[in-house]
């Protein structure tokens, strides 16, 4: 059975002003995929994510999510889609002046009509889902880096999103925490059917969770390879991809 297309990227050019990072990228993310955007440092992975999440406009091209054009579509429809996506930033991006619980309640206050008590309970539940039971009233400065990421994930999950984006989830984490976060991503994907887009260059993560991917290349500013990362490792389409997936071994 062919899966439905969730995100359709058409002729997308990403960059800042005159500085092009990637040109004319075309790819699709299917419903329920764990989609990896990989590539070397500085090749524009985070920038690609910023375009997908609407933080910066593309230099050219379209991003279509659930049939809605996110670049040129009607503002209210675009907003509906945005509400249905959660983002875990590289540093967690928790608001430091609020407790974890308040952080998670913020999107709920904005977009739902739950009573404050219900919101508190929902926040507790999301924290429990990511393994932070009882940390409701802690401030971000009082917890470790790995916990911050998990709390950030809890906030990203607040509105029961259809798509969750991750920017380098394993950056700055020890191997165990990183592994735990990977497991959490898999669990969310499997139990909730959430489509997941992950920017990473962690090989262990890529092979542990990814089932579809694109490989960005800074030199040619194009997508050098695409598909299941395991397949890419078995039949590497070119030297650069092989080197990347094997930590620099020569073919």
């Amino acid at each position: 059975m062919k899966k439905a297309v969730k995100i359709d990227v058409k002729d997308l050019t990403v960059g800042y002003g005159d500085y092009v990072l990637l040109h004319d990228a075309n790819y699709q993310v299917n419903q329920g995929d764990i989609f990896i955007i990989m590539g070397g440092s500085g090749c524009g992975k985070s920038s690609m994510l910023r375009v997908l999440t609407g933080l910066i406009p593309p230099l050219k091209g379209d991003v279509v999510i659930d049939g809605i054009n996110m670049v040129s579509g009607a503002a209210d429809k675009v907003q509906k889609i945005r509400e249905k996506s959660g983002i875990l930033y590289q540093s967690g991006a928790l608001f430091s002046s609020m407790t974890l619980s308040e952080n998670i309640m913020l999107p709920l206050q904005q977009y739902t009509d739950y009573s404050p008590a219900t919101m508190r309970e929902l926040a507790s539940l999301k924290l429990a889902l990511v393994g932070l039971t009882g940390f409701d009233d802690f401030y971000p400065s009082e917890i470790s880096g790995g916990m911050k990421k998990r709390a950030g994930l809890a906030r990203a999950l607040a509105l029961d999103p259809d798509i969750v984006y991750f920017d380098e989830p394993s950056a700055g984490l020890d191997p165990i925490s990183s592994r735990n976060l990977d497991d959490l991503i898999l669990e969310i994907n499997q139990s909730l059917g959430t489509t997941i887009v992950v920017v990473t260059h962690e090989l262990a993560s890529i092979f542990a969770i990814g089932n579809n991917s694109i490989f960005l290349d800074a030199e040619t500013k194009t997508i050098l390879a695409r598909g299941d990362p395991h397949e890419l490792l078995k039949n590497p389409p070119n030297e650069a991809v092989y080197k990347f997936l094997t930590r620099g071994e020569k073919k």
Partner: protein
Amino acid sequence: MKSPKVTDIPMNNIVITAENDKLNIIFSGDVLGCDSAGAVQKIQGMLQSGIKQVVIKAEDLEQWDSSLLVVIYETLRLAQATKLKADIKGLPKNLRDLMQLAFADDRKPTHGGEDYSFLESIGKATIDSAKTVSAVFSFLKQTLSSLGRFFSGNSVMRGVDFCSALEDCGPKAIAIVSLISFLVGLILAFVGAIQLQTFGAQIYVASLVTIGMCRIMGAIMVGIIMAGRTGSSYAATIGTMQVNEELDALQTMGLSRVDFLVLPRIFALILAMPILTMLADIMGMIGGATVGVFMLDLPYEEYLKYTLNAFNLKNFLVGIFHGFCFGIIIALCGCYSGLTCGRNADSVGVATTKSVVSAIVWMIVTTGIITVICLELGI
């Protein structure tokens, strides 16, 4: 056999000799902290005199540091540039590996480090300032529409944020504002007294301090203190949120940054500044009185009488109005600098500096404008 012409330059165990068309560079013993620039210069000079081959020998090398590496690296580069043959003999393995690393050419900068000609940089500066102007206007527009949302009850501003901002720029600023204004009053009285003494008119110190503090000095001092204390902290806080991607998170959550971050801070300063200005006026007058009564030995009742005579509600209100305007300026400059901060720790420092400097400049400009308007209206 023809005896070769030998030039000998001993230099911390580096011996550089020219032998016909061959340049020998011999390292022996410990080469630590040698004058590598000097050695390279000598080698460069000697390469010019018909040398065809460079031989580097390091069989007897014992200890070495980076200064040796520099000599070898630069020599090899010179040889490469002039297409000379270079032989290296007896170089320890780790040194050879390092050289290989240095000469690996699989890494090159992809962008950045652009050089601009004079004309180009003028053009770039013009475009940049045009962009800044339009960014400032769009920020002001956003702030106005955010105010509109607030008054129509659609703002996402949180009361808690307003309270904590108010606490920070109100009660916590009282001590420093009191101290500085007291001292300014003191200074005004001293400086005035020296001049007025020559006419035997010391008692007018009271009028001088009262008018000076109420009309403008109180507001200016509070403005400068608050720009350095609160405006900069706004810029640093919001700038750090940019670095931590918290601003991104706000935006993707569909929460207005201006509602959320700027509005509570503007309201807090608008409320606090007039009150602090009043406090500064009073403290300044007390400072002046301290000098007048205790140092100039003016009678207490006289001093009070002249102070009350000089006190004028119009002046006082103009001063408070200054404080109100300065509050808006400090909050806007601080928040704007923070929101436009770059994404690294360095740029938070830049944003902080920018907030203070721009706030002070705009406060002076505003003072000028208010003064002219008052003059026209005869206030």
